């Protein structure tokens, strides 16, 4: 490696590091300012809470024995709806790719369902599926499935015509075209769908929990606001942030491992 190239690599790495350091500093600065402002009574902690109060709350919930239960319930619901939503969405998109007639029939329904705010269905869901975990998962599914179908179908149907022609020249079956061409061509699309679905499932789960649940981070937030305990609300939101970061990070790690093969 030439000196010049070493210098270049060093420069790029340094830039990357300074971006990360700045990002972390902003976060810490925010937390410190928040804490100081509440300490010197510049803001009303009754409305805004403060980092130390949030930590106190987390410790309280931990001693109470409910902290991990809330986190576990939300994570569990999110994972279930994430997997179900992704699988069902990809399956329907595959069926649409397979059969053009079905695709054309379904398309307008998808458009309408996609633009419909799913929260609006909440009350009906509760009546149909009951005020329990089922309606929370169904709510999250509704949110992730539609967008999965739309994105995946778009990806599946925009595979290069020439490559399809190549497979046809080898007399490939439709199944072979699907497994050897359509799916591998869309690995990036699929990973993007996974990333979107993490947030979609989380949004759906929290929305569902706000409506019906007795447990979970969404419930914590809802309950906190009902009894005007803003500390609890903030605690719920911060735990939620942490949860979504962790799940997103796991997906990115899997993607990195996987993409190596492609």
């Amino acid at each position, binding site marked *: 490696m030439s000196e010049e190239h070493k210098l270049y690599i060093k420069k790029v790495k340094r830039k990357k590091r300074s971006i990360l350091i700045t990002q972390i500093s902003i976060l810490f600065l925010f937390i410190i300012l928040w804490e100081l402002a509440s300490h010197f009574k510049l803001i009303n902690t009754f409305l805004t809470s403060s980092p130390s109060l949030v930590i106190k709350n987390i410790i309280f919930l931990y001693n109470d024995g409910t902290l991990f239960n809330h986190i576990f319930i939300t994570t569990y619901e999110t994972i279930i709806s994430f997997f179900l939503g992704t699988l069902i969405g990809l399956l329907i998109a595959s069926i649409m790719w397979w059969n053009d007639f079905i695709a054309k029939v379904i398309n307008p329904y998808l458009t309408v369902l996609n633009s419909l705010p799913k929260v609006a269905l909440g009350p009906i869901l509760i009546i149909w599926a009951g005020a329990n975990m089922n309606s929370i998962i169904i709510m999250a599914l509704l949110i992730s499935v539609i967008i999965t179908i739309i994105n995946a179908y778009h990806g599946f149907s925009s595979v*290069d015509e020439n490559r399809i022609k190549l497979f046809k020249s080898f007399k490939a079956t439709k199944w072979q075209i699907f497994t050897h061409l359509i799916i591998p061509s869309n690995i990036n699309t699929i990973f993007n769908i996974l990333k979107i679905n993490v947030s979609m499932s989380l949004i759906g789960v929290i929305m569902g929990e706000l409506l019906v649940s007795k447990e979970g981070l969404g419930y914590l937030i809802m309950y906190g606001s009902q009894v005007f305990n803003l500390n609890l609300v903030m605690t719920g939101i911060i735990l939620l942030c942490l949860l979504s970061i962790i799940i997103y990070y796991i997906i990115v790690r899997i993607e990195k491992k996987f993409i190596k093969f492609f």
Partner: protein
Amino acid sequence: MKELLKINKLSKKYHTMKGEIEAVKDFSFAAGNSSFIAIVGPSGCGKSTILSILCGIEKKSGGKIYFGKKDITIGYMLQNDTLLPWLSVLDNALLGLKIQGNLTKETKKRTIELIKTYGLGDFIHCYPNELSGGMRQRVALIRTLAIDPDILLLDEAFSSLDYQTRLEVSNDVYQIIKKENKTTIMVTHDIGEAISMADTVIVLSKRPAQIKNVYNIELNEDELPSSKRTHKDFNRYYKMIWEDLDINV
């Protein structure tokens, strides 16, 4: 000489909501064993359509196609770079065999031999984005040859390459085809490429493709395309074909 391929009054119409497009009309010709036929014609005249019909991707609307052999295998090398970026050179080359369920130890060995013979041995585990344009086309040709086709179809196989690479790849491909002794039908809009590689050049009219003229190219087969181009007969053919095409426009 027994004919490997005979086409009689082939015609093709595409139907779209905008109307009917007659792409090929009364196209007849025959190809003997290990002949090299080039088809030239203005773009959009129906050249690709003829090849697509021959290898069964499109259905013909009329006419007859006879093959001089049962269970004929046809290899089709397409216009653009159709190597799959997620497969290595070897896996790309094996794709046709795999799809057709003919991937055995023997066919795999044969393909590896092809890759080595044609100068890609060091790149066998590389991915397409690590190869030059010319090398990629060579892999695409090996992929087509790996299924051991009786007839090789080339559709503007070099049009995405720059001029210099194109001449080199023409030489490479010509040698490979002569060595493998394959009956070849090559579509191109490059007159020079047609004359320097083929022994028969078919000139097509504008759409619907009909045969305008057929030339027997009598240049020394053992010379490379690049050296055939320097021959004075080359210019004579060039001028005649150019005039055929010019009148069409």
